[in-house]
């Protein structure tokens, strides 16, 4: 008997054939995975490369560790003192100064008092001597004069004596007094008393300041290098676009700190040239060679850059959102800077001489340096006020992009995992259906001695291979095509520098290893559950784990309805998958449709939402002459605005506190002098209600305010607190009758522009919505169609399984004489009903989930507007999914039509 060689496992050959046999389904799963893995991989690569570029830029372009602005230019002594990073001994300096100031005054006072006393004593002595002499003279003459005559004689003699002796006597007495110990003691005592008073006063004032800024803490000096980085703010106008109105912050040449990455063009070479931020240039349509007017001064744009301290264009660190649409940053030559006729901002950047090891150390450094800065500014010879202090780690303009890039990555990862899980379940359902179909083959193989492990490996190979191939192709696309897409998205929001594409193991792990593991686990569970059954059960096609004694009893419906219900019950697991899949799509659609809709809703409605069309903010409520600034505008109403902070776990939220007139025509909170109302947006964002207490804090002080909420005012445009103006003035120690400006609907024209700081209109309020819309809006529409494609693919895969499972009964029904249309109705209508119901339910779930997601997102951003989906958006979501279903139904119709009758008459292979 001839024996042969043991062949290689023939099932391996089958894996490839299976892949090809079911090429449509596998291609769909493959393509979906390729696109998702590609996109997420691109996102990781772009993120990683960009984050590395941002990190490296900190040292490459000498990014600041922080900056501060002073009210006046610091002299060399102050700069040296600040740069030392040492805390000034404020009480000692103040004391020495006060003593120095007090000494001559005290001495003068004591001297004057002593002199007065001496004069008094001399006068008394002379008077007494003269009286004695006059009385002695009268006694000698034996005359007794009437009192009046005696007094006249006395006055005459006193006057003569005073004239003759007083000055000399006083002079002599004073000479003696100045020499006397008594005078010295009195002087020392007075001096001590004055010093004690000074000490008490300084100590009590310092204690208050020390408590607020924890100035008593001892720490090592934090020496820094200081760089003057002065700037001027100007109105930006573009001769090429007369409608455009923006702002530009212009710096002088940057040579040592906060340098810039030139993305195109060059640095300015003469006083008429400027380089500006690339992102803003893109948004405003400014190109190299264009002219730009900065408060009337014309410049030619010669370069587009990314400033290392303005990766995100935040005008102020307290702004809710960056604004790359109307805020610009530029740099000119010294001469160009001098040409610009605007107020100077004395801004200084600093870098630690000993770079901090980590963020924790950086925060400690910053705390210590701020204390040094506060004390040094306080003891400065020239009165100097700190107007702004922003350490780099807390500077949104520097950190926001990196933070956002990070959260994008997390979100992309989650989407990939959800989609992979959905696909893994679809693949598992497909395999489960294959196991049923191939039940007798499996039974035979198991009966012949194939182990469970061998069959598990075989059935697992196809889904794993699909993921692996998709991961390879997806990663290649991720590194090439999709990386560019993602980078394009980022360049559309942030002023990012140039970057180099870097390989990241994280992208590989997250887009290849994790999807593979997900696919492995989900499929393994399903396959193992089935393959646990005995070979005999496979041979008997008996794969149900639970055997129903009887079929489910159905109501006495018409035959067709009952038949459809049976189809539904038979395919329950598939419909469950359909539900998960469509819910996933609907969640994404809620975001893709809802987000732009919410943003445009706010932009459109903002003018109506604002309680007054304009808030005119004055620099002071009195003009230069001390007169209260008034207006003839009929609807103008004085109001106050004050800024406090609401501390949350994640951030400090800016809250506007409004002081209003009783029964104000703009925000009527009645006339209760103690009422505290909050805006609807504030209530919604932090889940506050009437009766709750709310605690707000002063920004740079150690003062908190806790109020009970009297009511919620229906105002959605900002986070605000409303109270009577009188109460606001008392609370914040403002003068009686003080106010910040006027609320008006018609606009104010009769107030001198120099007295007006700003006019807040709806444009300012929609800044967040506009910027978000610009950054995300355009992609959302594109992703809406991606969602439809995903929905179509999921529907295709699942309905294919349902029809394949029923091929035999369908063929039999055809033999029995059912028409294709009737059969299609039997098998397609249950799916249609499931799709419609699932869409409706998941639309609701998607909306609710998005609301949660939205509020989490805004927690990080600051500001608030509720997530809104208009009725027509729900219709749109529904129609999008339904159109995907209708498309697939056409496929299914042809699929049913193609099933041959002979199938029912054939053996099972």
């Amino acid at each position, binding site marked *: *008997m*001839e*024996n*042969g*060689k*043991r*062949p*290689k*496992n*023939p*099932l391996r*050959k*089958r894996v490839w*054939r*299976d892949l090809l*046999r079911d090429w449509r389904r596998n291609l769909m799963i493959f393509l979906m995975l390729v696109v998702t893995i590609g996109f997420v991989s691109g996102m990781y690569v772009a993120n990683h490369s960009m984050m590395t570029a941002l990190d490296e830029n900190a040292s490459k372009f000498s990014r600041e560790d922080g900056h501060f602005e002073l009210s006046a230019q610091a002299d060399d002594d102050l700069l040296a003192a600040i740069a030392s990073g040492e805390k000034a001994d404020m009480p000692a300096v103040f004391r020495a100064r006060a003593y120095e100031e007090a000494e001559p005054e005290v001495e003068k006072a004591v001297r004057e008092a002593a002199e007065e006393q001496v004069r008094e004593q001399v006068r008394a002595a002379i008077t007494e001597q003269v009286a004695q002499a006059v009385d002695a003279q009268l006694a000698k003459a034996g005359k007794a004069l009437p009192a009046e005559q005696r007094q006249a004689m006395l006055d005459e003699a006193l006057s003569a004596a005073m004239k003759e002796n007083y000055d000399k006597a006083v002079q002599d007495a004073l000479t003696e007094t100045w020499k006397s110990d008594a005078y010295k003691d009195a002087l020392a005592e007075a001096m001590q008393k004055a010093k004690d008073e000074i000490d008490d006063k300084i100590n009590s004032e310092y204690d208050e300041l020390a408590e607020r800024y924890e100035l008593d803490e001892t720490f090592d000096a934090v020496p820094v290098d200081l760089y003057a980085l002065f700037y001027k703010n100007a109105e930006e106008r573009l001769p090429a676009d007369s409608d455009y109105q923006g702002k530009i912050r212009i710096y002088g040449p940057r040579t040592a700190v906060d340098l810039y990455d030139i993305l195109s063009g060059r640095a300015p070479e003469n006083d008429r040239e400027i380089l500006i931020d690339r992102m803003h240039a893109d948004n405003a349509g400014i190109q190299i060679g264009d002219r730009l007017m900065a408060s009337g001064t014309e410049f030619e744009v010669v370069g587009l850059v990314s400033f290392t301290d303005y990766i995100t264009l935040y005008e102020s660190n307290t702004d809710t959102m960056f604004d790359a649409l109307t805020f610009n940053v530029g740099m000119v030559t010294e001469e160009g800077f001098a040409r610009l006729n605007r107020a100077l901002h004395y801004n200084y950047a600093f870098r630690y001489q000993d770079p901090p090891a980590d963020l924790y150390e950086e925060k400690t450094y910053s705390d210590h340096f701020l204390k040094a800065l506060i004390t040094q500014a306080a003891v400065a010879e020239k009165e100097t006020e700190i107007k702004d202090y922003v350490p780099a780690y807390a500077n949104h303009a520097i950190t926001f992009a990196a933070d956002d890039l990070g959260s994008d990555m997390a979100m992309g990862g989650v989407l990939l995992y959800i989609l992979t899980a959905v696909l893994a379940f679809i693949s598992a359902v497909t395999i489960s259906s294959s196991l049923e179909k*191939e039940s*007798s*083959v499996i*039974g*035979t*193989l*198991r*009966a*012949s*001695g*194939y*182990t*469970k492990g061998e069959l598990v490996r075989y059935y697992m190979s196809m889904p794993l291979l699909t993921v692996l191939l998709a991961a390879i192709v997806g990663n290649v696309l991720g590194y090439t095509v999709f990386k560019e897409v993602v980078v394009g998205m980022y360049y559309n929001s942030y002023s990012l520098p140039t970057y180099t594409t870097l390989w990241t193991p994280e992208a590989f792990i997250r887009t290849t290893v994790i999807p593979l593991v997900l696919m492995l686990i989900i499929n393994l569970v399903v396959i193992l559950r089935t393959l646990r059954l*005995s*070979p*005999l059960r496979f*041979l008997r096609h008996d794969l149900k784990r639970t055997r129903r004694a009887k079929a489910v009893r159905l109501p006495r419906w018409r035959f067709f309805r009952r038949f459809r219900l049976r189809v539904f019950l038979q395919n329950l697991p598939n419909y469950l998958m359909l539900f998960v899949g469509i819910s996933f799509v609907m969640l994404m659609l809620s975001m893709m449709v809802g987000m732009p809709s919410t943003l445009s809703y706010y932009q459109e409605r903002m003018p109506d939402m604002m309680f007054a069309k304009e808030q005119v903010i004055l620099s002071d409520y009195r003009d230069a002459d001390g007169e209260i600034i008034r207006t003839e505008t009929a609807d103008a109403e004085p109001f106050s605005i004050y800024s406090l902070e609401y501390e949350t776990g994640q951030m400090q939220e800016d809250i506007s506190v409004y002081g209003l007139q009783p029964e104000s025509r703009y925000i009527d909170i009645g006339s209760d002098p103690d009422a505290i109302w909050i805006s609807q947006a504030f209530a919604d964002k932090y889940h506050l209600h009437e009766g709750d207490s709310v605690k707000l804090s002063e920004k740079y002080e150690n003062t908190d305010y806790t109020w009970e909420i009297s009511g919620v005012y229906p105002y959605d445009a900002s986070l605000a607190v409303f109270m009577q103006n009188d109460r606001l003035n008392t609370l914040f120690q403002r003068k009686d009758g003080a106010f910040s400006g006027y609320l008006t609907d018609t606009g104010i024209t009769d107030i001198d522009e120099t007295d007006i700081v700003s006019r807040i209109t709806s444009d300012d309020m929609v800044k967040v919505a506009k910027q978000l819309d610009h950054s995300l809006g355009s992609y959302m529409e594109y992703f809406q169609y991606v969602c439809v494609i995903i929905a179509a693919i999921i529907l295709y895969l699942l309905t294919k399984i349902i029809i394949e499972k029923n091929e035999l009964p369908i063929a039999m029904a055809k033999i029995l004489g059912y028409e294709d249309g009737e059969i299609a109705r039997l098998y397609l209508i249950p799916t249609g009903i499931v799709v419609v119901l699932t869409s409706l339910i998941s639309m609701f779930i998607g909306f609710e989930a998005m609301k949660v997601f939205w509020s989490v997102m805004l927690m990080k951003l600051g500001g608030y507007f509720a997530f809104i989906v208009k009725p027509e958006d729900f219709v749109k979501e529904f129609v999008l999914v339904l159109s995907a279903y209708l498309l697939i139904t056409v496929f299914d119709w042809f699929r049913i039509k193609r099933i041959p009758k002979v199938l029912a008459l054939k*053996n*099972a*292979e």
Partner: protein
Amino acid sequence: MDEKTKAFLEVRGLKKSFGSGDTRQDVLRGLDFTVGKGEFCVLLGPSGSGKSTLLNILGGIDTADEGEILIDGDKLEDMNEKSLTRYRRKHLGYVFQMYNLIPNLNVKENIETGAYLSDNPLDIDDLLKTLGLFDHRYKLPNQLSGGQQQRVSIGRAIVKNPDILLCDEPTGALDYTTSKEILQLIEEVNQKYHNTVIMVTHNEAIRQMADHVIKLRDGVIRHDDRITDKKSAAELEW
């Protein structure tokens, strides 16, 4: 002593029932018999007599409630699931009424699925010739007739040169001529490779080609006969 008379397979007191309580049905009610090595044994009986259940228990894909089975001295009931799989892998070949071929593997590859299980399989080309399938070796199952498909399934079972070939109604779905061809093939395989063949059938005529006939009815053995004047498959008529 002739190998065929020496007990290779021993069945003692084998019982099996399905269901419980009122619905309990005794399928095998205490069977005792032996089968010799290389013997062609036919299990005969009408539907429901328990012959397929007996075959499945012998094949290790079903279990008995009572009794024991010894194959070449090894007790089947002592084996756990893993050992049973190994036992099937090393010692058994299965042929079913339905051919259960893998649709997207060709004839040769389907046979290879059997060969893969053995460390010492038969030469596949040689076997294909024996099976009369050499010219069809690259065809897929759906390009073959029922008889040819059954040949492939026999090839798959026999290629690993099993000690026992279990056949469950292998001609049940075939016409007269094809059935005879298949029986001839099994006979040829039995003679050529000396495997013990246990075949379940309800076709009385097939008993004539067997060395050993066990007739079951209602779960008990009615006859257990050794045939001395057996006919060749070609001579059978029904």
